[in-house]
């Protein structure tokens, strides 16, 4: 749980972050979105004291962050930056071991942790541990960057445009991997992005900032159906609103019993993907793949259209 209370940052008397308050629930993913210069990165960097606030208060799990030395605070908070920032002179192993070593973990515990994280990120220990960052692909570098941030088992992970340097295909995979890992480990993630699709795909809640002010902090659906003002509406993309709504839910939410013709859709599809499939194949309904012996279920165009306009 992170409580941000009336936090401001002034540079030369100009507020870059202007009296922002928000409560971020534990074990959720929050994305801060906004145009460049909106103060979103400054807000995030105040949480681990890379920038000191001018006024206001931030508490993590009830503790005021100014009560701890900045470098000690940062060892308890994972931090992932755009372009990964791996140490080029250190191996993958040493990079991941950075914070545990600062915390003086013993050798065996560190090695166990590195093995565990490499396995979690689908990197073979024997072939990757001794490699240097320049010997990795962009996607692998990014995963090692996240693994390094998670090495000391932080409750909170801050991510600044973590997928910005990746190409679209690897990015989609990295995003879904992050989501899975967050569910598995249960940490709180605060993520800065300018990519609305990324924010919708990943987050439980989205904070929209403009000119240093927090305009709205709500669940993705609420942002779409009840934007606080015209800026938020524009930011979440009015033209795509219906599709965004559909992309938030899986087809099981609107599935019904019954038969339908044609190829079955995988059960884990989003409603948006199902709609696309129906439009493309020219069907009014499609069967949903079911485990053997279960009653047949289907998704229909009319229910998809209704879901797209639901508010």
């Amino acid at each position, binding site marked *: 749980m992170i409580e941000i209370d009336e936090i401001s940052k002034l540079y030369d008397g100009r507020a870059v972050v202007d009296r922002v308050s928000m409560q971020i629930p534990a074990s959720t993913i929050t994305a801060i979105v906004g145009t460049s210069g909106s103060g979103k990165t400054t807000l995030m960097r105040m949480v681990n004291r890379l920038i000191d606030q001018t006024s206001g208060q931030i508490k993590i799990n009830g503790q005021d962050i100014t009560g701890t030395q900045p470098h000690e605070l940062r060892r308890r908070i994972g*931090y992932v*930056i755009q372009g*990964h920032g791996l140490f*080029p002179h250190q191996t993958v192993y040493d990079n991941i071991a*950075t914070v545990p070593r600062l915390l003086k973990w013993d050798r065996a515990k560190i090695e166990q942790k590195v093995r565990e994280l490499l396995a979690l990120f689908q990197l073979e220990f024997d072939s990757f541990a001794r490699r240097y960052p320049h010997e990795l692909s962009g996607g692998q570098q990014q995963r090692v*960057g996240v693994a*390094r941030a998670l090495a000391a088992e932080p409750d909170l992970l801050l991510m600044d445009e973590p997928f910005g340097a990746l190409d679209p295909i690897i990015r989609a995979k990295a995003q879904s991997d992050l989501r899975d890992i967050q569910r598995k480990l249960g940490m709180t993630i605060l993520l800065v992005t300018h990519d609305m699709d990324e924010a919708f795909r990943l987050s439980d809640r989205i904070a929209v900032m403009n000119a240093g002010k927090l305009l709205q902090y709500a669940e993705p659906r609420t942002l779409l159906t009840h934007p606080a003002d015209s800026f938020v509406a524009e930011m979440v993309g009015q033209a795509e609103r219906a599709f965004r709504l559909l992309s938030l839910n899986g087809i099981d939410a609107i599935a019904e019993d019954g038969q339908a013709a044609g190829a079955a859709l995988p059960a884990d599809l989003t409603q948006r993907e199902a709609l696309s499939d129906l439009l493309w194949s020219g069907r009014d309904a499609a069967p949903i793949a079911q485990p053997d012996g279960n009653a047949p279920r289907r998704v229909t165009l009319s229910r998809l259209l209704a879901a797209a306009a639901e508010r």
Partner: protein
Amino acid sequence: MQIAAGSLTRALFGLGILAFLVRPEWFEPALRLLVDQNMPVIYLQGNLLSLLLQHLALVLAATTVAAILAISAAIFVTRPVGSDFLPLSRSIVSIGQTFPPVAVLALCVPVLGFGNGPTLVALIFYGLLPIFENALTALRTIDPAVLEAARGSGMSEPQRLMRVELPLAMPLIISGIRLSAVISVATATIGSTVAAKTLGEVIVAGLQSYNYAFILQGGVLVAALALLIHDSLTILERRFGLRRLATTDGKP
């Protein structure tokens, strides 16, 4: 092929130098062609090997002191507290480089007397600039994302310096030390004009008596020493640098 040929030439040259140091008389017939009939051919007023070692020791001492001073200064002015001193320290080391070593020698002799002292001072002054400038460039051009990651991971300032900044700056710093040491090898010869024990002694003796064989012996030995230092520091530099040649465009 080219590299192999280069190393072969170096090796042969090195063997020749060693042979000359151990058995100078082998070279007497060749060197005799350079001098008049009744002149000495081989420099015998001092042992050449011991002169070479003293020359080397002087250069090493001067370069070590210059490196410590220059690197400390570069570290200091790249910290937030020291950034105000950047222009000042830059001009001090530049003056050190512009000031002719001969003038430094002349100015030091009245204070330090004849011998190695003035030469050491001149070499230290003269050697500061390449090391300082390289260390400064190295420390100021580290990828900001890497420094940000180091801060974000919770490294304290000294930890950042020792674990990230210095290791990353090391290849360029060593290259500055190499440059400085090679210049010092050559510059140290003029120390012999104020009675420093260096190979310059041989050259000076040759110049005073029109003995070209002496001049050649001294000159070649100084060149050999410069090559030796250049090569060993290049190897050291590579060892530090090899692993991260392709940090920007790294693909497996």
